């Protein structure tokens, strides 16, 4: 187990094409960090730089107090789980899990001991003789994790490991990942574009956009105080409503808006879409009225399940404490 630190890490392919613009973060020993961002934001590239699969153009990465910039992946003491699992198709589960140890020259006893232990944790004991092709998606996923666990690395790297699974299995594996981390306590970096995964798994998360870390913080802190307009518009489902107000932007969470009498309304919308979800109802519309001259921003509102909602005008109010303000030019949060 080890702490990982990234100091002003940069990646450029040519002098004009820079994809990571200096990311710095200190990851504590045993911490579970999720890197979240839309596709193309550089999150996988960042992870692959930690793994050693991409060269580092600038800055410094160190794992357990050792600068690893120039080290081969095998010498970094990391293990990686790939999105498509990358299992060796011609090897059995046992061979897949033990391959790295065999190369390192561990004795047969230690290998079988470690594989047995990992197989026990992941409930793979009955599948050790099978080939990956004879396994289901969830089982393959587990073998990929098993291959990482047997190495007993200092850091786990996950590159969207759950995105090839169906929705139900994803939720289940999410839970297993969490309990695995509790049990092994190994520093983990986890890349995903799924914010639910990020919110549920992360101790801290890094929200990335366009090769920059927009915000680094605990999930609820990021949700409560998004540092930039991008984070505000990315986190939450539906995300924060962003309403232009002069040279500023007003941000309001959908659940912080409540219907009221027309006279008390601080925001009025013209409803055009109602989505009853059972537990609650999502109402979408455009802002109307005096303040809405610019752009007629789109607004989402989360209402209780049985709230009377139909097309037409919906007067809404919100408390001043629920307002988030951002600077239009820089996109940065304005603290009051």
């Amino acid at each position, binding site marked *: 187990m080890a702490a990982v630190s990234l100091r002003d890490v940069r990646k450029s392919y040519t002098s004009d094409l820079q994809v990571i613009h200096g990311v710095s973060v200190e990851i504590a020993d045993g911490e579970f960090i999720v890197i979240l961002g839309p596709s193309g934001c550089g999150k996988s590239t960042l992870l692959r730089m930690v793994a*050693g699969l991409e060269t580092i153009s600038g800055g410094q990465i160190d794992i357990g107090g050792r600068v690893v910039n120039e080290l081969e992946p*095998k010498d970094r003491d990391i293990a990686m789980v790939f999105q*498509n699992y*990358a299992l060796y198709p011609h090897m059995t589960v046992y061979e897949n899990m033990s391959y790295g140890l065999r190369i390192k020259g561990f004795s047969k006893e230690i290998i079988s001991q470690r594989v047995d232990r990992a197989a026990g944790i992941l409930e793979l004991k009955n599948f050790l003789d099978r080939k990956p092709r004879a396994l289901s998606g969830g089982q393959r996923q587990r073998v990929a994790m098993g*291959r990482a666990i047997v190495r007993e690395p200092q850091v786990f790297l996950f590159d969207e490991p759950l995105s090839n699974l169906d929705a139900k299995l994803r939720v289940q594996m999410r839970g297993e990942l969490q309990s695995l981390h509790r049990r092994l306590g190994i520093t983990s970096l986890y890349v995903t574009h799924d914010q639910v995964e990020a919110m549920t798994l992360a101790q801290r998360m890094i929200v990335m956009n366009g090769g920059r870390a927009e915000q680094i913080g605990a999930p609820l802190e990021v949700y409560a105080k998004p540092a930039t307009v991008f984070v505000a518009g990315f986190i939450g489902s539906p995300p924060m409503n962003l309403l232009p107000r002069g040279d500023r932007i007003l941000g309001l969470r959908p659940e912080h808006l409540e219907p009221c009498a027309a006279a008390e309304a601080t925001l009025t919308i013209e409803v055009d879409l109602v989505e009853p979800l059972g537990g609650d109802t999502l109402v979408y519309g455009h802002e109307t009225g005096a303040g809405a001259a610019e752009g007629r921003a789109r607004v989402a509102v989360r209402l209780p399940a049985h709230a009377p909602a139909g097309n037409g005008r919906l007067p809404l109010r919100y408390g001043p404490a629920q307002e988030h303000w951002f600077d239009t030019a820089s996109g940065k949060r304005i603290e009051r």
Partner: protein
Amino acid sequence: MVERRPVLTFVRHAVLIAGVALVMLPVYVALVASTLPIASIMTVPMPLWPGTEALQNYAAVIAHGSALGSSAPVGRMMVNSLIMALVIACGKISISIISAFAIVYFRFPLRTACFWMIFVTLMLPVEVRILPTYQVVASLGLVNTYTGLTLPLIASATATFLFRQFFLTIPDELAEAARIDGAGPMRFFLDVVVPLSRTNIAALFVIMFIFGWNQYLWPLLVTTQENMYTTVIGIKRMIPGGDAAAEWNLIMATAILAMLPPAAVILLMQKWFVKGLVESEK
């Protein structure tokens, strides 16, 4: 195609059977001829029922060849042919799988140029460059040697190209996983790439074995001594020039013998061969 009508089924089978008969007839005639004494072959029409001389004919060609044409023993030629076909097939596969591995998995200067150079040689048939090749082989003193017989035919653009196409379908993550597991390039090659390519290797082996076995022009040029003849050359040399009579029963026996090893290779490797051509195993 899924219709089940008796008439259609009948016509379909009739056409197929007629086709097979047409293709098989010459082979059958050769087989029959190889069992007859020379006198009965010379009668018109030639009998189409196997005779009784099979053992004598085959024993004669394997040991002594033909008395009227070349008298090189066919047994020795079969061995030559086998060595040539095996060396060519194995050589082609090992060289092309390694060069395809280099082209796909390594970044080096002029990588694309190298690939295109290999690819361009596909466009030149052996016959076009046979003169300079012969000059080189002769200057190296390799005429009438197994090296001379096989070496010029070993480089294969086709196989390199096929392996390259297959390697491109292996996901990059496998190479990356192997790197993280600590496997160096050659370890990855031997532990992952070669086992994954085994059906392709089998298919190419069959094709290349037959290619090597059936070589005619090159062995004709590069061998001048009877003990280096290959079977295919042997058949030709058994036919005496001019109006001299040929021992067709012995020549046909040699032809049948020449057909056996390629047929055996196909029969033995059929399953792998078809898999390698059809299936793209991930």
